[in-house]
């Protein structure tokens, strides 16, 4: 027999209990969901940061079908005018190829794309330090051509801001919900363990074991179970997210979903299993202490 070869005494036979495996698997599954939510959160966060940098407008110059040559002249005139406006920091004509790329997913027959008569878009960025009268700018541009349309981004930005906040709150809410479920799960499993081994608990208490001594093994089980499950879930989740991000390229679908998986976020993700394990340890300790206290009364 090799029972005494172990360097520690396990007063509860938790290693042989299926509850431990159940805990790891469930925590793993919840971690996968958490990785999805957090990846979405970070993917959404970055474009918003670009949007909020400085006020900008897009000037749309319609395609003149009756006189196509005049369109390019019109663009030149607009550009010359814009260069005279001191408040403009950046003037950039959107390339036709870039527009076509944006349209690609929505057009079935790709050969028709080149024949499309597209308006010309000019993105302008305003210098924050110099005031710009947007109405006057629109008026002046319409004097060049009545069909010119100026689209301010302020409205879109405010909408994006609302959507961003909503998504942020929902994402954090979901993460909080998942952590709560994990905590409830750990508490439930610990209570089940404790009640299953009630006879051993009673013996230990009669031998003078302190609550901390009795709780220690449950804490260790919660820590290792959650750490293993959480790590497995994290790795699986990251692989799945990466797979989903490259799948459209592999099977030739338009990119509709592109999570941002960057290396600078890796420490954050690697930190998650430890947070989960630490919280689980605390929950386990509190559960055992509360239950033992109620038994003592």
């Amino acid at each position, binding site marked *: *027999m090799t029972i005494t070869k172990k360097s520690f005494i*396990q*007063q509860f*036979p938790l290693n*042989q209990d299926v509850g431990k495996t159940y805990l790891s698997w469930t925590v793993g599954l919840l971690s996968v969901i958490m990785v999805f939510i957090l990846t979405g959160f970070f993917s959404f966060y970055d474009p918003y940061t670009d949007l909020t940098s400085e006020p900008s407008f897009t000037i749309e110059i319609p395609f003149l079908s009756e006189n196509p040559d005049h369109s390019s002249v019109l663009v030149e005139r607009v550009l010359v005018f814009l260069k005279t406006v001191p408040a403009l920091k950046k003037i950039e004509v959107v390339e036709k190829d870039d527009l076509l790329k944006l349209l690609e997913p929505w057009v079935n027959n790709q050969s028709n794309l080149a024949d499309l008569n597209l308006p010309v878009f000019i993105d302008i960025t305003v210098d924050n330090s110099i005031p710009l009268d947007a109405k006057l700018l629109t008026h002046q541009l319409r004097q060049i051509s009545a069909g010119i349309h100026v689209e301010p981004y302020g409205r879109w930005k405010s909408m994006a801001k609302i959507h961003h906040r909503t998504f942020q709150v929902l994402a954090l809410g979901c993460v909080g919900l998942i952590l709560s479920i994990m905590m409830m799960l750990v508490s439930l499993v610990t209570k089940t363990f404790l009640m299953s081994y009630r006879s051993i608990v009673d013996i230990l*208490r009669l*031998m003078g074991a302190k609550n901390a001594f009795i709780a220690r093994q449950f804490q260790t089980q919660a820590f290792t179970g959650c750490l293993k499950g959480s790590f497995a879930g994290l790795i699986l989740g990251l692989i799945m997210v990466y797979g989903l991000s490259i799948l459209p390229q592999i099977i030739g679908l338009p990119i509709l979903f592109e999570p941002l998986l960057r290396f600078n976020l890796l420490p954050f993700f690697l930190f998650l299993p430890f947070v989960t394990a630490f919280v689980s340890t605390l929950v386990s300790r509190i559960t055992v202490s509360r239950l033992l206290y109620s038994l003592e009364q």
Partner: protein
Amino acid sequence: MPYQRRPSVEIIKFERVGLQYSTGQTVFYELSYSFFAGTFYFLTGPSGVGKTSLLKLIYRGFKVSEGKISVFGRDVDSLSASELPSFRQRMGLVFQDCRLIDHLSVLDNVALALKITGTDTRRSRTYATELLHWVGLGDHLDNLPLQLSDGQKQRVAIARAVITRPLLLLADEPTGNLDAHSAHRLMSLFEELNKMGTSIVLATHNQALVSAFPYIELSLHQGQIQAKPPLQNRHPRDYY
């Protein structure tokens, strides 16, 4: 002031103690008695008279309904939840059903009692090995309790109860399931412990066993203790 082991010191003191079960049955009423340190007591009486309840009152398995019990100079009822473990570490408990932990080896069952007091695993196992040799179980260190006979299990339970060198040993029907020879062997162990200074309260309904040993007999009758002094010229051989 810390308790010190002296023959004349009261180790347990019952003062007008009453105990009533939740069913309304009164077990003890106005019970007063003092147990002295270093003494061996037999607690006798027929089944159901309250022997186990009296022991439970001492280690605070039950709380008194009225009156006061002092153990090691402390009012047992006033002990807080945090004080209770260290209070129980100063006494050893032996039960009729042994209450060993089935998945642990004999050695670890005994070593665990030391580990609870803060001794490291290695030293706990070393002391437990020595003690198990002393109780005659040196060849069964790695056995599980299920592989032992009733007498062997009781010896493990005693080893577990005394490994921490308790001031007080409470034994509830430890010889209940044993034949006369095994019972005598256990009694020899208890006597050895008592000689080393441990106070012993041994509850039993085995009158033959009590008659064979020269110790104070406390007979429980109608919720009161009647002390009978030990008879002279008794010898254990009279028992078996």
